[in-house]
C-alpha cells in the first residue's frame, strides 16, 4: 500500500483526483482540508483518511502530521492542492491584506506542508507534487496580479526545491493546470462584480473584460484530465519536472506576442 497526503483535498479538483487515485487501487490517501462537511464526504471513499489541515497554521499542520504519523512512518507522495483565488486591483481596495492572505495559503502553505512532511517523504523515497497554474508561467492579465504573484512564487519555490531535493533523489513535480470550473469560479465572478462596483478608475475596462474572462472560465475542462496527469506524476518511474493540463489557447497565443503588442491589444479591446 502506498501513502499520499493531499492538502486542499476538499476542493473540487482535489476530490476528483483523490477519487481517481483511489479507483486506481493500492493507495491510501490522507485527505487534508478545512471544510468539515466535505472532509466527511471524502471519508466515505475507500482508503481515504480525512484530516483537518489548515495550511496557514503551524499548529494545524503539526496536528495533521501526528495523525498521519500514527498510521505510517513513510509517505510515497505529498500533493499540495491547497490554494485560493482573489480577483483584485493592485492599487484599489484592501489589496495588501488580500495579497498577504493569498501568499500565506498558496505559497507559505506549501512551504509549511512540505517542510513538515519532508522526513516522511525522504524515508519513503517518495515525491512531492506542487500545484502551480498556467498563471505560474504566463504574463499576468490585468486584475489577476495577486494570484499570478503567488503562482510565480510557487514556480520559483518548486524549482528551487526540485534542485535541492534532487541530491536526495526525491522528485519534485509541478502541475500547471489551466482553467477548470470549480468552486473558485463562482468566487472569481463575485470578486469581479465587486471590483466593477467599487472601482474608481477601471469600470469600463473591467466591464469590457468580463466576457473575455467568462469565455476562459467557462471552458469546462474535464477535471479527470488533471487527475490523469497527477497520476502520471505520482506513478511514473521518472516523472517529468512539470505537467501542463488544459492550458488556455487564447492566453497561450498572447504569450507568443511581444509584451508591448499584448499591452496594445488589451488597450484596443477596451477602446
Amino acid at each position, binding site marked *: 500500500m502506498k501513502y499520499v497526503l493531499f492538502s486542499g483535498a476538499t476542493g473540487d479538483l482535489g476530490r476528483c483526483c483523490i477519487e481517481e487515485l483511489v479507483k486506481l487501487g493500492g493507495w491510501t490517501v490522507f485527505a487534508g482540508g478545512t471544510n468539515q462537511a466535505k472532509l466527511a464526504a471524502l471519508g466515505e471513499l475507500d482508503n481515504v483518511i480525512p484530516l483537518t489541515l489548515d495550511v496557514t497554521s503551524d499548529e494545524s499542520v503539526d496536528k495533521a502530521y501526528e495523525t498521519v504519523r500514527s498510521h505510517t*512512518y*513513510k509517505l510515497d507522495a505529498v500533493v499540495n492542492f491547497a490554494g485560493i483565488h482573489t480577483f483584485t486591483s493592485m492599487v484599489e481596495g484592501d489589496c495588501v491584506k488580500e495579497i498577504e492572505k493569498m501568499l500565506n495559503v498558496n505559497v507559505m502553505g506549501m512551504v509549511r506542508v512540505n517542510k513538515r512532511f519532508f*522526513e516522511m517523504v*525522504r*524515508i519513503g523515497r517518495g515525491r512531492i507534487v506542487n500545484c502551480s497554474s498556467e498563471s505560474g508561467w504566463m504574463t499576468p492579465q490585468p486584475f489577476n496580479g495577486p494570484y499570478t504573484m503567488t503562482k510565480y512564487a510557487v514556480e520559483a519555490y518548486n524549482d528551487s526545491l526540485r534542485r535541492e531535493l534532487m541530491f536526495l533523489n526525491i522528485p519534485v513535480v509541478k502541475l500547471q493546470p489551466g482553467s477548470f470550473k470549480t468552486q473558485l469560479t463562482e468566487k472569481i465572478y463575485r470578486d469581479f462584480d465587486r471590483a466593477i462596483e467599487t472601482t474608481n478608475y477601471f469600470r469600463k475596462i473591467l466591464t469590457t473584460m468580463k466576457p473575455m474572462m467568462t469565455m476562459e472560465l467557462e471552458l469546462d475542462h474535464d477535471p479527470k484530465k488533471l487527475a490523469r496527469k497527477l497520476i502520471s506524476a505520482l506513478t511514473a518511474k521518472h516523472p517529468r519536472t512539470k505537467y501542463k493540463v488544459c492550458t488556455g489557447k487564447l492566453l497561450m497565443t498572447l504569450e507568443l506576442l511581444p509584451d508591448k503588442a499584448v499591452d496594445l491589444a488589451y488597450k484596443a479591446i477596451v477602446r
Partner: protein
Amino acid sequence: MSEKYSVITGGTGYVGLALVKYLVGRGEKVRLLLLEDHPCLDGLNCEKMFGNVCNPEDLEAAFEDAETVYHIAGVVDISGKKEDLMWRVNVGGTKNVVEACKKTGVKTLIYVSSIDAYPDKFCEGVITERSTYSEVGLESPYAVTKALATQIALDAKDDLKVCCVQPTGVIGPDDYMGSSIGAMVDLFIKGLFPVSMSFGAYNFVDARDMAAAMRNAVDAGRSGECYILGGHRVTVDELMGYMAAALGRKKPRIKISKALVKPFVPLVSKVMDLAHLPPMLNSFSLSKLEENCNFSNEKARREIGFSPRPVADTIRDTVLWHKQKLEGAIA
C-alpha cells in the same frame, strides 16, 4: 534469584545466543521466542516458544510470568531486498513488544538498538549517547528503523524500566546465522582473501561482553537511558593482522587503496549476490568503513559495568570458531 522468566526475542542471532548462554550459565529461567528451532540451542536449559514479534498474541503468550524481556529480534538488510520485512519487524515488532510488556506487567525491557541510530557519522570527535532518536539525518533504511524503534522503546520509560543498548559492529563466535563479517572470516580462512586494505576502520564489540552488560543493565541501568556498547576501533589492516595471527599465518602483504577498490564494488557485490553470500562488500559497507566510529563506551562502563575484552581475544575466538565450522566440527 528471580523465579520469573527472562524472555529473549531473537535468541539464535549473534547477540541473542551469547545472551542465552550467559543467562543459562547464571542459572536463570530463560524463555526464548523463536521463529523456528535451531540446533545451536541444543543442550541449553531454556524454554522455547515459537512465534513472531509481528504477532501481538505470540508476544503476550511469551511474556506470561516474565520479569525481564530482552528484545533482540531484528532484521538487518543492507541489500534493500527485505526492506518491508525490516520495517515490520524492527519498528512494528518493537511497538508490539512494548505494548505486550505493558499488558503483561513486565518490569524491565532491554532493547538492542544500534549505533546506526546515530546520524553523527560525518562529524568529528567522540560520539556519546543522545536522549531522543529520530529519522532525521539518517540515510540507510536500517538506521531509520532502528532509530524509530529506539524511540518507541524509550517512550515507554514511565510504564516500565526500559534501557537500550547500542552495540557497534558485533563479532564473536557462535555465528550460526551467517553474518557478513563471518562470511569474510570464512573467505580469509580459505585463503580467498589474500589482500588487506590500506584504509577503513570500524568499532567492534564482542557479543559475549554485550551479554554481560545487558544483564547488568537490568539491575543497574536507568530507565529511559541508552548505553553505547562500543568495544575497540580496529582498522581493516589490523583486523587482517589479528585474523592471520589467530591462524598462525602471515598477514597479507598487499594493501589495496580505496581508489582501487571502489570501481570493483558493484561487480564484487553482484558476484556475492549470485553466489548467495552475505553482502560483505558493497557501497554501504564501504562507506561504513570510513565513517566516524569514535564511540564512547564511558557511560556503559560507568553505569552497567560494561567491560570489553581485548579485541585480539575476540577475533581469535571468532576465527577459531569459523575454522572449526569449516572443518565440520560445528553443524
